[in-house]
């Protein structure tokens, strides 16, 4: 709502005092584990847990269906200007925030402007394109762009709509001038959303509990979950025990294969294979010896034993090129490097380092949180040893990996990552992973800095015609394969064990899932048995 008019209204805190919580019968309740703390403010969070909270607690202008189709949601319709530099959205007027305030276009504009100003989380999707948002009337909001952005509408699936009045009522002093801290402090433990679930309690590092929002504008199935709790449990053994004891309904996606196998044995438990766009990738530093030599990189790509990875490390997965098949615009016919030691040897002989391949050590860093990555690294290490290439493996805390990405020198030869992205077109990944703008961050360890590719990516994203866009994506993919900045190992599925005996979970059963981070944990459509 507009703040001037309803200023006097008391600020209602959507978190209910823990003491007053009635002892609900938590029959239809979902328990999940996650590595907390998370970022509860939708303008800050960008992790997969953050995203899955956002999708359940906040509403967006558009909604991505399970199969990746973008459909109207809060917005009923939208138009794009001729030049592609402004978008006008009409929005519903029957939506209420969790505190009862109506949702209007001012809230939408506020949310976009807030995200741009704060500049964290998913705002990277817009900062370079969107100039500002303006509500012209309570049901109309206009976004003004700096340059054409063909995928703009798809990205709005990531714009969580906040209750402006509530947020501003809870602002404290901060760096954003008249907006104070933009309510960031308050939003880190409260919600200001209108989504299907509202926040019950947040213990930052322990658990987050949300319950069903009865006044939600969409219909509720009677068997939909009454609420959900994320708990900070990351010890695999504990997770397994809890799942067995029905203390856990759905696990996180970082369980090891061994653990998943064990959990699959439990009665009533099933393991998902949700391909949400992630590709297990060995990101090679193209600016540092020895991976600065394209032949050396190709050699490594030929050295990787893809079949063992697919059969033993991640059984039942499939190979992929730079872009997961889940994305629109991914090229199914792109060249895949085979495991071929002879070819590898050939490439090595052509490389700068042919004379003394052991001279430079190939350091592989993988995230200590994902132990299965070690096995992939071991595979490469073993094969490389045969050619006299010296490979070391380091389990690295995530923060150190981020720190490593900062400069070319500190970036290791290979960093093992499972990147995925925010909207369901290949451009999303291409832009994030291979555009020069993302070098120096953990989004890109390759330091590709290839001007030709940069231009191609920019052109594709600016292209308003979808078909054209998609074909442009394919060209980029084959160029990338030729440059071989990364070893694309396999398409990495989100494997979560869940209690299939208790509820049906559409995302888990779907053939194809939208390649959007956190999307598969949309609880409203789950049905308890």
């Amino acid at each position, binding site marked *: 709502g507009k703040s001037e008019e309803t200023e006097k209204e008391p600020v209602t805190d959507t978190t209910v005092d823990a003491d007053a919580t009635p002892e609900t019968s938590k029959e239809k309740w979902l328990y999940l584990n996650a590595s907390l703390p998370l970022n509860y403010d939708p303008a800050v969070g960008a992790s997969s847990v953050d995203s899955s909270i956002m999708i359940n607690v906040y509403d967006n202008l558009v909604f991505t269906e399970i199969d990746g189709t973008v459909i109207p949601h809060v917005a009923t319709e939208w138009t794009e200007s001729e030049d592609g530099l402004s978008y006008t959205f009409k929005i519903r007027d029957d939506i209420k925030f969790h505190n009862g305030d109506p949702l209007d276009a001012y809230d939408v504009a506020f949310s976009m402007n807030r995200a741009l100003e704060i500049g*964290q989380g998913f705002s990277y999707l817009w900062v370079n394109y969107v100039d500002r948002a303006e509500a012209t009337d309570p049901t109309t909001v206009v976004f003004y762009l700096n340059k054409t952005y063909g995928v703009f509408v798809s990205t709005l699936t990531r714009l969580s709509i906040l209750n402006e009045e509530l947020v501003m009522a809870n602002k404290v002093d901060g*760096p954003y001038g008249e907006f104070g801290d933009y309510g*960031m402090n308050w939003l880190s433990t409260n919600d200001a959303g209108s989504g299907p679930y509202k926040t019950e309690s947040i213990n930052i590092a322990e658990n987050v509990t949300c319950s069903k929002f009865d006044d939600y504008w969409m219909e509720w199935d009677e068997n939909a979950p009454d609420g959900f709790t994320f*708990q900070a449990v990351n010890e695999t*053994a*504990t997770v397994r025990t809890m799942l067995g004891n029905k203390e856990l309904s759905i696990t996180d996606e970082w369980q090891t294969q061994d653990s998943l196998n064990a959990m699959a044995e439990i009665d009533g438990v099933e393991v998902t294979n949700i391909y949400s766009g992630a590709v297990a990738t060995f990101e090679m530093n193209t600016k540092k010896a020895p991976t600065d030599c394209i032949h050396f990189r190709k050699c490594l790509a030929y050295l990787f034993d893809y079949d063992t990875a697919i059969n033993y490390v991640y059984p039942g997965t499939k190979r992929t090129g730079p872009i997961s098949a889940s994305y629109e615009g991914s090229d199914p016919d792109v060249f895949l490097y085979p495991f071929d030691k002879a070819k590898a040897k050939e490439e090595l002989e052509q490389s700068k380092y042919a004379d003394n391949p052991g001279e430079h050590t190939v350091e592989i860093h993988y995230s200590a949180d994902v132990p299965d990555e070690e096995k992939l690294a071991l595979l490469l290490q073993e094969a490389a040893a045969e050619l006299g290439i010296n490979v070391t493996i380091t389990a690295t805390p995530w923060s150190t990996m981020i*720190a490593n990405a900062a400069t070319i020198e500190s970036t290791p030869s290979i960093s093992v990552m499972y990147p995925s992205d925010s909207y369901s077109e290949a451009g999303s990944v291409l832009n994030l992973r291979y555009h020069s703008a993302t070098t120096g*961050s953990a989004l890109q360890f390759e330091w590709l800095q290839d001007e030709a590719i940069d231009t191609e990516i920019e052109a594709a994203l600016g292209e308003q015609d979808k078909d054209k866009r998609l074909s442009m994506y394919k060209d980029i993919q084959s160029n990338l394969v030729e440059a071989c900045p990364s070893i694309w190992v396999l398409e990495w599925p989100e494997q979560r064990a869940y209690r299939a005996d208790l509820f049906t979970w559409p995302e888990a059963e779907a053939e194809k899932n939208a390649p959007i981070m956190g999307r598969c944990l949309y609880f409203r459509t789950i049905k308890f048995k």
Partner: protein
Amino acid sequence: MAGFKYILKRMAWSIFVLFGLSILIFCIARVIPGDTATMALGSTASEHAKELYREQNHLNEPLPVQYFYWIGDAVRGNFGNSTQTKRPVATDIKEFLPATLELIAFAAILEIIGGIGLGVLTARKPGGLLDNSVRVTSYLGIATPSFVWGILFMLIFCHWTHLLPTIGRLSSNIVPPKNITGLYVIDGILTGNTAAAWDAFKHIIMPGTALALTGIAQSARMTRASMLDNMDKDYVSAEIAAGIPMRRVMWVYVLRPSAIPAVSMIALDIAAMLGNAFMVEQVFSYPGVSKYCLNAILNKDLNAVVGVVLVIGVSFLLVNIMVDIISAFLDPRIRLQGGTI
């Protein structure tokens, strides 16, 4: 009197030590490689946002200036915001510290009773069956890392027998008690929420015991050694020769002087738990300050690291002073002559 002065002097020194400690910690925190702003705001943050962050946290200033900004805030209890939780570190500590304290309190009670009790029992008949079995067990206690105990307990009591709850401080179906002390068990009892108290207590048993075991073993050994040492003294012969019953001689006359080294060891051990508890907190996903500290360190959450480590340092110093007071209570020589330690 002399003792009191001595303690005052200790406190004065402690402030000095604290100051040195803060510099040490600050330096450690600042040499962490990588762009602090990026680590705090994430890879996707805009340049504008990062610059804002740097300015707010004085990261563009030279190190000594940064230190003065920081120490100025720190004495006012403001350690800045955590990059993990996006909250003030002080708030985080306030939230997580009681959990660890509760855990440590349990471990401490176990350690004191278990350690000293076993020490006395074994010292009664050195070489006897009880003595030897306790000694062998205590060797195992010392040689086994607490996380291994944690894992074993979890195997036995959760995986196999389902006797005790697995993780956290409280089962999810239990309403936490009103916050008075922050210790759930005590708050539960105070507010009459006995279900919560009992549940919280059950959650502490395993991590608390795992945490205490090494200490129990060590303090039992220490008590035993100093008991045996003191039992060779003439005054013990004198007491026995005066016909005072053996039990009283052991539990009163020998225990008190022997307890002095054991008590200071136990106290320092307990203080160290504040920092070392992370292994069991990790295993049992127990939301304590030690685990918070570990995560802060692993995630290069500067402000949190500095804050927590400083809190641990302060507790350590406080415990040291407390050890002095306790020793003074147990040993009149220190109390009345003003400390030779």
